[in-house]
C-alpha cells in the first residue's frame, strides 16, 4: 500500500477517535476525509476482499442485507457489513475502514455490501462479487440516474461475469431481463397456493399502481399476467415471444401472515431446469416481518444464504433472532404508540400504506418528506403513490405533513380527497410531537431517508421512561 493510502487510513482513524471523544457515533465522515486524502482508497481496500457478496436493487436492500448478515455471520466465520443503508461509496469506505489495521490491511476477508444501484459503477472495477443479490428494479429517484433504462444498463454490467452467481427475483420482469447476461442465475419467487382459501397472498393490489416492467424486454409486447403480487411483480408471460417468468430455484409462501407465528415456507428445487422437485427440500423460516414486500426480502436473503451453502436450520435460527433495521415499521410503544417507516418511492410507499391500512384503528398519519440528495431531489413521485386508495379505505384519519416538502405532500393529500381542514403542516420535525392527540391515537410516521435517523432518536426520546428501550432497534 502506498504511503498516501496509508496516510489516508491513518487520517480516518484519527477522525474516528476524535468523533468518539466528542461523543458522536459512526458517520461517513472518516470515509469522506480518507478519500479526500487518497481518492483510490476504496479500490485499494475492496481489492483485498476474498469473498464478496453484494445486495442491490431498488427496494428492500437494507432489510435483505441485514437478514443475510444474520444468516452468514458467526464468531468462527466473521463477515463485515455496511449497515443502516449506508450504501453510497462513502458509507462502504467507512465500513471497510473499521476493519482496516494501521498497516492498511483489511482484517476481515468476507464482506457483505449493500450497494446503491448507481454506486455499483464505482465498486465493480475493484471487485466482482461471488454472489450478487438483485432484489427488484422499480422506478426510484430518476433524477439521480437519469431514467430506468440507464439503471437497467448499470445492473446488466454488474451481473456480467463468469464468476458471479446472480440471485434474483423471477417475479420481476426487469430483474429477469437483466439476468439474461448472467451465466448462472438463481431465481426466487413467490408461490401462492392454488386453493381458494389462500390466506398467504396478502396484497393483490388494485390495477392502478405503476408497473415499470409491464412490457416485454425482448420484443416490447404488453406482458400478460396470470397473477399480480405487487408493483410489476407477478406471474407473467409475453404473448408474442418466449419471455416468461423463469423456473424457480426457491419458491416461498407466507404462512399465518401478520401473526407472531408467521413463517416463510421455502421450497428449494435442485439446480436443474426441471420444475418438478428432483432433490427438493422444503423448510420453514420464521417470518419476523410485516408485509409481502418483506416476505420477498426474507426469501431473497434465504436464497442467497442457501446458494452460499448455509444450512436451513441456521437460516431459521438467524431469522428468529432477527431485529428489524431502523425505521422499517419500527414500533415505539407508549401513549400514543408511534410506528416509523421509511418511504422513498411509489411502490415502496404503496406497500407501506397497505400495511398501515390493515391496522383498523383510528389513527394519525404523519408524512415527513425531504428533498435532499439522498432522498431524491424530485418529489413528483408522491403523485405516483396510490394515496386515493388509502384515503378512501381509511376514513377519519388525521394527517400531518413535515419536512422540506411538507407543502407538496399536503397538496398531494388534498387532491387525493382529504379535507383540507384535516391536513396540518408543521414547520419542523420536532413539532410533530406537539400536534394535538388527546385520544392518544396511534401515530404512523412515514418518512424519507434523510429524516429517518433523526426521527428514530426523536421518537425514542419522546417515549415515557418505562417504555424506553422497548422499541425494536438494531444496535
Amino acid at each position: 500500500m502506498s504511503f498516501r493510502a496509508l496516510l489516508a487510513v491513518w487520517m480516518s482513524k484519527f477522525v474516528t477517535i476524535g468523533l468518539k471523544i466528542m461523543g458522536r457515533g459512526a458517520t461517513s465522515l472518516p470515509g469522506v476525509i480518507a478519500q479526500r486524502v487518497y481518492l483510490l482508497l476504496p479500490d485499494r481496500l475492496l481489492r483485498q476482499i476474498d469473498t464478496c457478496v453484494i445486495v442491490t436493487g431498488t427496494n428492500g436492500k437494507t432489510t435483505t442485507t441485514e437478514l443475510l448478515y444474520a444468516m452468514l455471520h458467526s464468531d468462527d466465520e466473521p463477515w463485515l457489513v455496511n449497515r443502516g443503508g449506508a450504501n453510497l461509496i462513502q458509507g462502504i469506505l467507512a465500513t471497510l475502514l473499521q476493519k482496516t489495521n494501521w498497516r492498511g490491511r483489511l482484517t476481515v476477508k468476507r464482506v457483505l455490501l449493500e450497494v446503491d444501484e448507481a454506486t455499483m459503477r464505482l465498486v465493480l472495477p475493484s471487485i466482482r462479487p461471488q454472489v450478487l443479490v438483485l432484489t427488484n428494479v422499480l422506478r426510484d429517484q430518476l433524477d439521480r440516474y437519469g431514467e430506468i433504462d440507464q439503471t437497467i444498463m448499470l445492473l446488466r454490467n454488474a451481473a456480467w461475469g463468469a464468476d458471479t452467481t446472480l440471485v434474483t427475483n423471477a417475479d420481476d420482469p426487469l430483474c429477469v431481463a437483466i439476468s439474461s447476461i448472467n451465466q448462472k442465475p438463481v431465481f426466487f419467487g413467490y408461490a401462492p397456493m392454488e386453493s381458494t382459501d389462500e390466506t398467504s397472498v396478502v396484497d393483490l393490489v388494485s390495477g392502478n399502481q405503476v408497473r415499470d416492467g409491464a412490457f416485454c424486454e425482448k420484443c416490447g409486447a404488453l406482458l400478460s399476467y396470470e397473477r399480480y403480487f405487487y408493483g410489476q411483480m407477478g406471474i407473467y408471460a409475453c404473448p408474442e415471444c418466449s419471455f416468461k417468468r423463469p423456473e424457480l430455484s426457491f419458491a416461498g409462501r407466507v404462512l399465518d401472515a401478520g401473526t407472531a407465528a408467521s413463517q416463510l415456507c421455502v421450497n428449494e428445487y435442485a439446480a436443474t431446469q426441471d420444475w418438478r422437485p428432483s432433490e427438493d427440500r422444503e423448510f420453514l423460516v420464521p417470518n419476523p416481518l410485516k408485509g409481502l414486500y418483506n416476505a420477498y426480502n426474507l426469501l431473497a436473503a434465504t436464497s442467497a444464504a442457501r446458494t452460499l451453502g448455509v444450512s436451513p436450520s441456521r437460516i431459521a435460527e438467524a431469522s428468529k433472532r432477527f431485529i428489524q433495521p431502523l425505521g422499517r415499521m419500527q414500533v415505539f410503544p407508549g401513549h400514543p404508540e408511534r410506528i416509523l417507516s421509511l418511504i422513498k418511492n411509489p411502490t415502496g410507499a404503496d406497500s407501506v400504506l397497505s400495511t398501515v391500512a390493515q391496522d383498523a384503528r383510528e389513527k394519525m398519519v404523519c408524512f415527513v418528506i425531504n428533498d435532499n440528495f439522498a432522498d431524491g431531489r424530485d418529489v413528483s413521485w408522491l403523485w405516483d403513490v396510490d394515496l386515493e386508495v388509502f384515503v378512501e379505505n381509511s376514513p377519519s384519519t388525521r394527517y400531518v405533513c413535515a419536512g422540506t416538502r411538507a407543502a407538496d405532500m399536503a397538496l398531494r393529500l388534498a387532491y387525493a380527497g382529504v379535507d383540507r381542514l384535516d391536513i396540518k403542516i408543521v414547520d419542523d420535525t420536532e413539532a410533530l410531537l406537539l400536534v394535538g392527540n388527546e385520544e392518544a391515537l396511534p401515530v404512523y410516521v412515514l418518512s424519507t431517508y434523510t429524516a429517518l435517523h433523526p426521527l428514530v432518536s426523536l421518537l425514542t426520546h419522546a417515549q415515557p421512561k418505562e417504555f424506553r428501550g422497548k422499541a425494536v432497534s438494531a444496535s
Partner: protein
Amino acid sequence: MNRPLRVAHLFPELLNLYADRGNLAVLRARAVVRGIDLEVVPIRLGEPLNLAELDMVLLGGGSDKEQMQVASMLPQYQSDLHYAVEAGMPMLAVCGGYQLLGDYYETLGGDLVKGLRLVEMYTKAEPGTRLVGNIAIECSSIPGVVRQTVVGFENHQGRTYHPYLPLGKVLSGYGNNGRDGLEGLHHLGVIGTYIHGPLLPKNPHLADYLLTKARAFRGVQEPLVELDDTLEWRAHEHVLQMLGISKTTPAETSQPSESLA
C-alpha cells in the same frame, strides 16, 4: 352539447414517467368542484383519436426507449393533431411529450427520431450534464393570470430550440436548452414544457388557464369561479423560496441600496 369536457391522455401506458396522472387529477378535481363534468379519455398507442369528441389533449413524458416506441407510431396521428392545433384545441405536452411535438429528436449517436411536426422545433441530445433540478420561470405569455411565476422540476438530456414564444423566461434552472434563458413553448393552444413536478398542482393558474381554454374550445365563455388555493400557493412559494426568488417582481427589487459603506 350536453356531454362532459373531455381530455385525451395520449399513450398513458408508455408516457407516464413523471407522475402525469397528477396533472389529470388536478384538472379533474378543479373542474368537478366547480360543477363541471370532466372525463379523461385514455388513448392507447394505435387506438384512433376521435377529435370531434375531445376538448383537450395531454401528452406526457416517457423514457427514451418508450418515446421511440411512440415515435414509430406517430404518423397516424399527425394530420388529426395538426388540425386540432390549428383549430385552437388546448394541448399540454410535458418533458418527452414536449420533445415529440417538434420535427425531430437527435440522439447522442446522431440518429433522428421523428416527431409530430406540429410546430417547427427540434431537440438535440447534447453531450454534457443532464439538465436536472428545481426550476422557476416568469410566465409572460399567459394573459390575466394571478401570478407570473411557474415552478417545478426539470430533468432532460435533450436541448430544445424553436422560434415561437416560450412559456416563460427562466428565473432559476435551465429551461429549453440551458443557453437562451427561455423555457417551454406557447403557440396557439399548445403549451409545451420541461417542467414537471407534476406541473399543475403547484401552478393552479396554469391549470385554470387550460380549463378555461378547453371550455372556450367547446364554446363556453363563462369565467371560472375562484377557488381557495392557499395550499397550492404555499407549495408554489416554497419552491420560489428554495430557489432564492423573492415574491416581488424583479423591477421592484432592484432598488438602489441606501447603505453606503
